[in-house]
């Protein structure tokens, strides 16, 4: 929690200064750290690959329950992304424009899902949810919307900070645009980087979430992997490596596509929290 806040804050620093500082530091240390981190992350992957064996990858797709689990996770990812963005974008825009004093409050509210343990959330949701939602993907989707809130809000907030929101909306309305047109034609295109960043975070969250899905008895892809582990450990490890690669590919696609689009209009790279916009240079 503290670490996350710190990470967000450090990301707000002036990038030029950060780069200058990095250059001053002893470059050998960078390689040492990179090597240690690389070993730390890649060693388990390599071990998993060895354990699963290459042959397991061929048969993982025909295992019972594989496709339904993938399909459920995909639907949840799409559902969560759409609902979260539809809720958070207008809220964040409204707060930035009309009640900027509430920004701090909203920030603390959106952090709540991280503070509350997933077990509490899972049980709590089952207690209060209407019967009609139970056992449908919608229930889990709505829980994920809550879970995704902190990440989505921060990404959108960073995007909005990078824009001169007041001037853009006023310029748009003086030219004759109503509210929805301004949002659709002016704000959303300029928030593209932030929206893609949110999407990356939400998709990663949904594709990796286990606790709540499992406690509320949904067989999402992560849950299927754990269940299947009891039948065939090799296959299950192969499936999780497959999931990892798939998620990674998907995220890379969003990041690359989003960055290329945003560079064209002078925006920054799609990353997880920072959204930098190129400043106008000189007159």
């Amino acid at each position, binding site marked *: 929690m503290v670490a996350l806040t710190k990470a967000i804050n450090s990301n707000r620093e002036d990038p030029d200064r950060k780069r200058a500082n990095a250059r001053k530091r002893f470059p050998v240390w960078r390689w040492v750290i990179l090597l240690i981190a690389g070993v730390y992350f890649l060693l388990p992957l390599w071990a998993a690959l060895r354990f699963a064996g290459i042959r397991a990858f061929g048969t993982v797709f025909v295992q019972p329950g594989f496709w339904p689990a993938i399909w459920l996770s995909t639907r949840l990812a799409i559902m969560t992304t759409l609902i979260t963005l539809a809720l958070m974008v207008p809220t964040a825009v409204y707060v930035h424009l009309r009640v900027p004093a509430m920004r701090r409050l909203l920030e603390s509210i959106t952090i709540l899902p991280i503070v509350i343990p997933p077990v509490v959330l899972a049980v709590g949701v089952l207690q209060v949810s209407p019967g009609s939602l139970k056992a449908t993907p919608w229930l889990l989707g709505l829980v994920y919307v809550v879970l995704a809130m902190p990440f989505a809000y921060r990404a959108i907030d960073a995007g909005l900070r990078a824009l001169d929101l007041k*001037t853009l909306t006023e*310029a*748009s309305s*003086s*030219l004759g*645009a*109503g509210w929805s047109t301004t949002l659709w034609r002016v704000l959303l295109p300029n928030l593209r980087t932030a929206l893609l960043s949110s999407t990356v975070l939400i998709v990663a969250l949904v594709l990796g979430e286990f606790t709540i899905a499992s406690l509320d008895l949904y067989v999402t892809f992560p849950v299927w992997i754990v269940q299947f582990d009891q039948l065939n450990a090799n296959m299950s490890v192969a499936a999780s490596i497959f999931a990892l690669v798939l998620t990674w590919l998907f995220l890379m696609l969003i990041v690359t596509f989003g960055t290329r689009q945003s560079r064209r209009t002078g*925006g920054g790279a799609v990353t997880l929290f920072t959204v930098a916009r190129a400043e*106008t240079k000189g007159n």
Partner: protein
Amino acid sequence: MATNAADDTAQAASAVTASVTTATSARGGTSVSLRNLSRTFGATRALDGMSLDIAPGELVALLGPSGCGKTTALRIVAGFETADTGELLIDGRDVSGVPASKRDMGMVFQSYSLFPNMNALDNVGFGLRMRKANAVTRRQRAGELLEMVGLAAQAKQFPHQLSGGQQQRVALARALAIEPRVLLLDEPLSALDAKVRLQLREQIRNLQQRLGTTTLFVTHDQEEALSMADRVGVMRGGKLEQVAAPDELYSRPATAFVAEFVGTMNRLPGELVDSGTVAVLGTMVPVQDGAPASGQVDVLVRPEGLTVVQAADGNGIVSNRTFLGATSRLTVLLSGDTEVQVDVPSTTAAAMVPGTAVQVALPPAPVLVASRNE
């Protein structure tokens, strides 16, 4: 009766000529009338019963220090703020309840306001798109306007590829593209460097005169206001102190505040002999209207309103000399620690190096006086 008809025909004919010569001409001038506008933000009175009439095709600049209410007035006209009391009439119709998007006002903002996701052409065409113009018309008209501001070559460039001055010119083209009834300029030049500011100042003024668009221009830069506007309104504390043509504002300021805000003004200690005469620098000078009844006052004189001659037993010593071209500005320290600035031809000033003893005098023309502590 016959003469009237002839006049009308003549007017109509000249109107036609005007619209032909300026193919992009705005609809025939719009009048704007601010009636007794007041607006408070919390404890601050941003506008305090401000009234102003702008004639069709006129460019009026609102000039004043920051916090004087000039921006609030502009934003009320734009529709971004609402007045607590008072009326805003456009062509005689109260538009207080009309939202900004329906007012047909072109606005150029202080900060860069181009839409970063659109290139210059699409930015200029945005307002036309909102008016449901088709793509061909839009592109053609946006192209014309970009050409008008001299940026036809930059049509496909995105805002981040344009310099600040170019961005403001695109913003101007975008505001003019909708053929606004009123053009609103909110310190559009203040973010630019001096040279670009000067060029753009002329360009805006030329375009405005060519199109005949009624324009309200807010600035804190007196030089900008005086050089561009038909009339300048000097504001202070939410009120208009004086609205007048630039030369009148300079030569016949209505109040001490206006006198000192516009141009350079010397304050010389003096004493009122009676309500019409003041004793200053050892001479008696007539006083303009609106003087205090009696007592210690400050006499306000422009640097070019004083004379200075070399005199060994004079009343002051030159402490500084600045060469300005044809004239030089001398700073003279008078007895009693009063410092005045005097403009003299540079040829005369050549001999007056710092340290020279001089005699500063005041011609017997009417002067403006202000109470000592104002």
